[in-house]
């Protein structure tokens, strides 16, 4: 396979976005067709690259701008991110056809939806820190219009906050990036050997690491710098589901994984002795995030704080610097994304069909929307880490990674978080099924079917992976073998 497929993967989204923008405002149907085709094509391109990327012999394309080299080539970690993102983009596209039907600014929505897809693919496929940074920056700007979708005061404010946080973070990354480039003599290409291996314990290297982690940590919503994420929940639900539970926040997490394993490498990280501190920050975020989530009454805000907590699961796994910890992190990236999108989809259906956004007022919603609330219940069990769901496996390996590194208290953090997760979601589901059993046709009609189908598909897929984790195992194994 030639390197052109990489260009196609990225260009599909961009050209799809341009076509969508050119389609007249009234022609909703054509726009949906273009959106679906674009997302499907991108997903197909990404899926085609899986076998070669997992073997480490993916197609490659590279060049340079002046003295700055760039290079596109998915390695196992990149391809896993690309597969998660591109697949969920298709699913969310179908959902948004139902959700956005009566919404304003549809042209704007779908255009930037596709641009964001292209940029996310760029992040996933780039095998170069500089290119990664460029795409990471671009993602802020292509997703900004989606955050301020409703153009009201609240969303503009949220948008401001989003831009502010992201740009300050980007500044930190740029500083660290430049320093790294100076140290390595301009070579920023990722390979199995981490970039800074030969540099060793240089003075100031700790600051570079911290700058990287602050920079990427903004999008990964690490606790002191997380506040843009709950604010950004004013966006339409498909955006909250896809961008603020998965792709944008995952780009931050992915960046940190890259920094830890591709730039510094686990050996150098071990020498720096920062692991405990980073683990503490991650565990603080895990516990406090989910605890704040239990106190939120608006369902989407509750999910947002819960996202903050769950993202740090992945970081916790990465910071253990253990093969099992990384296994857990990658598994959690895969499994958590499916369940969280399910949860957000359910929240969207509830808000659209019954108008309820507050948990305390959801009494009896379950009888009106039985399938939705069943999916919600299944996803909730997954968030606790119960076995028939795929998140059990990620949690298991995260705990295994913590104990293998001799850091068993962090395994207890995960147990505690599981219990708080139960407090957070179980009453929501139970409350929904209380009260009078009223037959309603809230789950009938084309709109709801378009929203319900992706939700149920994702919940089923999560159950399936939970029962047969071997489906995703080769990918996870490839990543771990790549870095260890």
């Amino acid at each position: 396979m030639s390197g052109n497929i990489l260009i196609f993967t990225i260009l599909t989204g961009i050209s799809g976005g341009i076509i969508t923008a050119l389609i007249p405002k009234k022609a909703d149907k054509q726009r949906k067709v273009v959106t679906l085709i674009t997302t499907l094509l991108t997903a197909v391109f990404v899926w085609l690259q899986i076998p070669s990327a997992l073997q480490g012999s993916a197609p490659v394309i590279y060049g340079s701008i002046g003295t700055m080299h760039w290079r596109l080539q998915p390695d196992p970690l990149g391809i896993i991110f690309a597969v998660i993102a591109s697949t969920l983009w298709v699913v969310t596209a179908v959902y948004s056809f139902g959700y956005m039907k009566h919404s304003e600014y549809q042209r704007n929505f779908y255009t930037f939806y596709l641009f964001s897809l292209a940029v996310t693919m760029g992040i996933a496929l780039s095998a170069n820190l500089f290119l990664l940074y460029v795409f990471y920056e671009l993602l802020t700007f292509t997703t900004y219009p989606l955050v301020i979708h409703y153009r009201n005061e609240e969303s503009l404010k949220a948008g401001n906050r989003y831009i502010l946080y992201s740009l300050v973070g980007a500044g930190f990354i740029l500083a660290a990036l430049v320093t790294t480039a100076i140290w390595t003599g301009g070579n920023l290409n990722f390979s199995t050997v981490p970039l800074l291996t030969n540099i060793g314990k240089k003075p100031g290297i700790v600051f570079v690491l911290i700058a990287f982690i602050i920079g990427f940590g903004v999008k990964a919503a690490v606790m002191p710098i997380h506040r843009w994420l709950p604010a950004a929940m004013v966006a339409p639900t498909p955006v909250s589901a896809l961008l603020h539970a998965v792709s944008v926040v995952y780009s931050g997490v992915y960046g940190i994984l890259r920094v830890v394993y591709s730039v510094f490498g686990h050996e150098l990280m071990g020498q720096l002795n920062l692991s405990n501190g980073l683990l503490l920050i991650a565990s603080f975020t895990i516990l406090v995030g989910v605890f704040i989530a239990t106190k939120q009454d608006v369902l989407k805000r509750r999910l947002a704080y819960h996202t903050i907590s769950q993202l740090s699961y992945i970081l916790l796994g990465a910071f253990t610097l253990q093969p099992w910890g990384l296994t857990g992190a990658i598994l959690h990236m895969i499994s958590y994304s499916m369940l969280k999108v399910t949860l957000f989809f359910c929240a969207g259906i509830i808000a659209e069909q019954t108008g309820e956004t507050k948990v305390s007022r959801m009494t009896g919603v379950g009888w009106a929307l039985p399938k939705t609330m069943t999916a919600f219940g299944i996803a909730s069990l997954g968030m606790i880490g119960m076995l028939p769901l795929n998140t059990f496996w990620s949690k298991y390996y995260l705990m295994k990674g913590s104990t293998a590194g001799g850091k068993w208290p962090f395994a207890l953090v995960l147990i505690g978080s599981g219990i708080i997760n139960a407090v957070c979601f179980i009453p929501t589901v139970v409350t929904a099924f209380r009260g009078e059993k009223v037959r309603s046709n809230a789950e009938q009609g084309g709109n709801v079917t378009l929203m319900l189908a992706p939700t149920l598909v994702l919940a089923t897929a999560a159950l399936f992976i939970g029962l047969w984790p071997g489906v995703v195992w080769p990918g996870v194994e490839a990543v771990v073998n790549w870095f260890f």
Partner: protein
Amino acid sequence: MLLVILTIIPLIGALILYFTKDKSINIPLIISAVVIILACLGLGSVFKGVPITYKIPLSGPFVPTFHADALSVIFVMLASFLWFVVSIYAPEYMKHEGRAKTFELCTLLTLSAVLGVFLAGDLFTMLLFFELMTITSYFWVIHKWNEEAIRAGYFYLFFSIIGGLLIALGIVLMGEATDVLPAIGAGFVTPLNSPMFAWSIALFVAGFGIKAGMVPLHLWLPHAHSVSPTPGSALLSGLLIKVGAYGLIRVGELAGWGMKLSSGIKFGPGLAVLGICTMLVGVAAALLQSDAKRLLAYHSVSQMGYIILGIGITLYFNGESVLGLTGAIYHTVNHALFKSALFLGIGIIILRTGEQNLYKMGGLWRKFPLTALLVLIAVLGITGAPGLNGYASKTVLHHAVSEAAHTNSSLMIWIERLFLVVGVGTTASFAKLFYLAFLGKPNSKLKINKGNNRLLMTPMIVLSLVMLIIGFMPQLFIDKLAVPALKSLGFSTNLFGQITDIDFWTAADLQGMFITLILGIAFCGLGLKTGLFHWKPPIWLSIEALAKTVLVGFNQAVSFCGHAVQITGRWFKQSLYRFYSSLMMLSTSLDYNTNNNKTTSVSFSNLNFSTGIIITILFLVFIFYLF
């Protein structure tokens, strides 16, 4: 393959039930009969010492394994038998409770999960079915959907979830301690890391202990078992808590019965103490109950204590004595029989009178003569009257306890004394139950609905017959079932003389039992006369109140912290604003005065790209300064 089919049959039944419109077919009954027949035909060979193992060949970390040895087959037969008899009872009862279809669906799904736990061949498969069992049986508990049921449901679900998480952590530590996860039924694996292995065992004990209602993790049990519909209570108390006991036995097996644990950590005495505490707490609470189903539920706690004590004593002897374990397995089976019979019997009364309060019943033997007789048989069974099954297992357990007491450990001597006290307490509380419900003065206000009780009493008759058979031939169970089970658990054959040679009909044992019975009845009379049973324990004595205090305190502490963070955050933000505006003022005054004093009201939400660049440059300078 048969093992997988056994767990899948109830699922198929559930599917059929879901799609069928015909209400006249009793699908759970048929399904459990099919399971019994298949198990009898296919699993008999395990008693000859040939375990069956089947792996579902899946790639990846999870290879579901099924394993059947004599111990698991005993439990499988027990489960399917109980499901069979309760399914005879359920349709008639659920007519009055309503939403029978949901209940039957849960019954079938739970059967599948329970069989899965008993037939699991590795820890992951066991945990999988264990969690599924939690979820499916949860719907029994909240069947009524009223305030009380939902509260009980929360108790049940949260305790079970915590149990599942503890077991998961136990598996993690086990994997770390032994490198390769030991399979169930494979016996002892020498750990590489003894302390971690010991912690893992402790976590397993806690996790399964929650299901088994071990003190202090029993809080959920009385709520959940009393609020669910009676057939559900019968199965919850009869079988689901036995899953915890089964898990504990398997954990004992993993630990090699304490034989080879080199770390010097002894689980035996600890487990025995927990067992005796469970017995005492259960029986003491049961004496004070006025609600019939709650009384029975607390007795489940107490009787599970006997089982835990039995396992603890075998661990105490480092696997050198099998009396305790045999007693535990024996009592598991017996308790399942008489406790479900008791629930079913009380269920008939509740169904026909609509009354759960014992003090409002009375003299009911006139209206329900046969029910009274059947309940009496079960009561005699649970109190350990000779001639019934309870006597057999309690005798074995008593032998185990007195053997332990002969080692001159003061702990074990005390345990033996308390063992007798619990026996008296059990008799007293059941004398109270039977006296208040069936004897005593009839309550004229009680309205009795007429109905055909024949179908409701059939399962009780079956259960009573089995109890009588075991009671009169106590040796039969030991020879045919307990010995192969112990063999499969890895005990050496020269220990089996201890149990095969037990004489159940010695004068000393019989005399002891009669004294217990008489003392119990006397205590009951005393308690009823003096109103001792109406004593309400002070609020601070209940663990729930304590937990509530802790939770409220925690909540307040957290909200205090939240406020503190908010206030500091606000202060920080304000000082940042002040700093920023003074900086801006400074820079504008350096530039030129626009006569515009609005700079003080600069807010962060108006920050733009240039600020980002400024901060970036500042940071760059900072980095370069370092070299």
